[in-house]
């Protein structure tokens, strides 16, 4: 199935099984470089700033944000959708590529799943804070209560959203952890430190690599992969219904669910690329995360970028074709021209034009270019969400409702805080958990040289 002659080996450098274990565990065994402590310090500071912003939000209320009566959803919802989008990468990576039997996922899936978990955690903060009275957040659970019992509205996309995100967080975390079991056992069996042995022994749940374990492990991975694939598609579709069910011009369109799902996978893959470029550079893991891997992600990104471009064009075309003057106004006077033209054109350039650079092989194989393009996609996707959320709300049907929107320092603080939280999580992951799925790497190390391919 995988043709080594055409696509190159999945693991370069003719590694033996023992070498793979050693190479992947090495970053956990040695003290990390100075860069790690600096990066962790900076992330921690960012997270503390976020902590302060959240404290102010809870203490004084959401009046500390830039939102107002017309623009009721500001940066927080923009950031929420952005983070959830990034959170689609891990599962998209591991699960779609798992059920499509794409073996090149093996070096990247662990890090992508880790990213998913931290990104979804960051995302989940925003809607909770947006409720205003965070301490009453549990009201959204449909539990028997003394108010009737009065149940939540099961027809509301906001409730669907809550269900989907909670389930997604728990499921992607379990999937990540399940994949980790054999590798935690590897760490347990290799370490000489007593504390580590006890700790990794506890978390590896007594894994031995027995054939009885492996067969159940494999069938469980496929079950979880198969059903979570449905969840990945549904989570962002549900997020899009938060908008599409509303009547605001620019929101009320049927294109939203597929448009959001594709956009989510786009930003997720871009974030995976950003992290992978850095990880393989810093830890010198180019034998495992090869140029071919980066090339493959880049090709997927061009494809998705073309879909995004088409979606933007479709939206504009339908606004004109519908003949609806509010839609026309939103797209032509408030996005393409007008107060928010910077965000609109930024989105078009970052998402539809810059990724086209990946048509060139030289760009796909140069790490600086990969970094620049993937970061610009992430900026572009943030602008897209800004564009959707803020433009439609700022100028709706009644000109007397029109206002402008700008974030306050608290808004910015919460956002910076979630970036810090995410970065802290990723850095701790690099330090304490095997960054690549060791057992899966071993199973593909010899592909192409044996009869099985």
């Amino acid at each position, binding site marked *: 199935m995988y043709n080594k002659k055409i696509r190159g080996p999945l693991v370069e450098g003719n590694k033996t099984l023992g070498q793979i274990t050693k190479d992947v565990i090495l970053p956990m065994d040695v003290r990390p470089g100075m860069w790690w402590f600096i990066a962790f310090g900076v992330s921690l500071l960012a997270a503390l700033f976020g902590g302060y912003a959240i404290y102010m939000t809870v203490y004084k209320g959401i009046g500390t944000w830039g939102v107002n009566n017309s623009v009721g959803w500001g940066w927080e919802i923009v950031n929420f959708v952005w983070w959830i989008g990034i959170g689609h990468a891990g599962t998209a990576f591991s699960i779609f590529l798992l059920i499509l039997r794409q073996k090149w996922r093996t070096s990247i899936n662990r890090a992508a799943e880790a990213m998913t978990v931290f990104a979804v955690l960051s995302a989940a903060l925003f809607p909770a804070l947006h409720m205003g009275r965070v301490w009453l957040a549990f009201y959204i659970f449909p539990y028997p209560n003394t108010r009737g019992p009065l149940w939540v509205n099961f027809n509301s996309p906001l409730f669907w959203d809550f269900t989907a995100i909670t389930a997604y967080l728990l499921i992607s975390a379990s999937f990540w952890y399940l994949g980790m079991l054999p590798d935690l056992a590897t760490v347990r069996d290799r370490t000489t430190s007593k504390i580590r042995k006890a700790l990794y022994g506890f978390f590896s749940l007594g894994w031995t690599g027995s*054939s009885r374990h492996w067969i159940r492990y494999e*069938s469980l991975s496929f079950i979880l992969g198969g059903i979570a694939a449905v969840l990945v598609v549904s989570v962002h579709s549900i997020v899009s219904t938060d908008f599409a069910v509303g009547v605001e011009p620019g929101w009320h369109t049927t294109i939203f669910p597929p448009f959001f799902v594709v956009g989510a996978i786009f930003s997720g893959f871009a974030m995976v690329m950003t992290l992978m470029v850095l990880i393989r550079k810093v830890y010198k893991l180019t034998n495992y995360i090869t140029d071919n891997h980066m090339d493959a992600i880049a090709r997927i990104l061009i494809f998705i970028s073309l879909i995004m471009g088409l979606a933007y064009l479709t939206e504009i075309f339908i606004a004109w074709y519908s003949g609806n003057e509010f839609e026309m106004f939103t797209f032509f006077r408030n996005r393409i021209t007008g107060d928010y033209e910077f965000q609109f054109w930024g989105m078009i350039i970052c998402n539809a034009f810059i990724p086209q650079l990946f048509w060139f092989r030289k760009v796909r194989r140069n790490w600086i270019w990969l970094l620049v393009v993937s970061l610009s996609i992430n900026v572009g996707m943030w602008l897209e969400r800004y564009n959707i959320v803020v433009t439609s709300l700022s100028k709706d049907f009644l000109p007397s409702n029109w206002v402008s929107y700008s974030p306050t320092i608290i808004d910015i603080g919460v956002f910076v805080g979630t970036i810090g939280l995410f970065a802290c999580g990723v850095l701790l992951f690099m330090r304490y958990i095997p960054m690549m799925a060791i057992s899966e790497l071993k199973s593909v190390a010899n592909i192409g040289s044996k009869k099985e391919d």
Partner: protein
Amino acid sequence: MNKRFKIGIFDDEEKFLSSIRSLKEQKLSIHDVFTPYPVHEVFHLLKRKSRLPTAAYFFGLAGIIATLAFLYYTSVLDWPIVYGGKPFNSFPSFIVVTIVITIFTVTIASLALFSARSKLFPGRDNTIFDPRATDDKFIIVVESDGVELSASDTAGDIMKQLGAVEVMEKEFGNVNE
């Protein structure tokens, strides 16, 4: 109770597999084999099967029925409210929650079943016959107790002949299945 085992250690997948084949031909019972990654040939040779997918199907079915029943109870029987002129049992808009909760049920229940059946849970202390199995060695474990001495020796000889880097006999207490 302590039990004795013959342990063969291999560093090559092919040699390891041919040893299993030959042990099977000689009708020697293999206690278990340990590998650093899943080797599908082993599942066929040792006839290992998993019924998790069947169980997952029933978890899914139970999840769907339970969720729909709960939604029907809360929205129709317990406290009916009209939302936007829709019927109380607005089935199409219940589908979303049903899908998500079903997926969630299947995941958690399958994980729990996996944990119970494989006996993998926090604090579990499964017998580690050789710690190199999680690194780069393939390991065959044959029970020495309860079989004739000659049979156990034959097993050792076969493994040695077919390229085991090491064959040893060891005693373990409290061996878990």
